[in-house]
């Protein structure tokens, strides 16, 4: 099955990846980690990265579903 996933990057990770948002259409996507690798085949998953699915924090091994919004970002520094 082909899944469509919206991938978003923030802050220094956005600079590193070179874009803020990508749409991924692919089969074989099962976890947040696999989304990273499909979207960034040439880049190692950075240490200390945080991930969210549909705006809730998740582990990198959490499942994703068709239509999800997956976000990757560095440690937050607000406040």
């Amino acid at each position: 099955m082909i899944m469509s996933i919206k991938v978003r990057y923030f802050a220094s990770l956005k600079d590193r990846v070179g874009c803020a948002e990508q749409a991924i259409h692919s089969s074989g996507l099962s976890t947040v980690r696999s989304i990273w690798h499909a979207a960034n085949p040439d880049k190692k998953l950075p240490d200390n990265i945080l991930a969210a699915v549909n705006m809730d924090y998740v582990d990198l091994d959490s499942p994703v579903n068709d239509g999800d919004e997956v976000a990757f970002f560095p440690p937050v520094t607000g406040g």
Partner: protein
Amino acid sequence: MLIKICPDMFDPWQEVQSYQQNTLTALTGKIGATSVFVGTMRDFNEGDQVKGMTLEHYPGMTERQLAKIVAQAQSQWQILDALIVHRVGAILPDEAIVLVAVWSSHRGEAFDASRNIMEALKSKAPFWKKELLDSDQERWVSKNTDGYTTC
């Protein structure tokens, strides 16, 4: 309960005053304690002079996470109401970055809850600071420190 993401400069004391006067009218006589924290932009960080900053955030997730943080505090302490205002965008030294205000009947709860909300915000709300140094170099702040250790 109100959570505001604010692209323009705000006066934290006026925000608290106006929220209390205009929104908390049903709590007249019930409030015994208000604990307010304001974070302000300094002109120095990690040994460097900083002349400006840009605050990025994840719209939607920010509000969602802040609402969860307040709900978590409400389940732990008797809170009458809470207000969070957080600045985004370009900001200059001496301007307010964040305001957390908690109203309660008793002071212990107001203090505990406001500090807890502030620490949770620092570790979970998706905001990121990019500093503009005096040298015109830009750098991302890499992580927040723990506010419970003061030594």
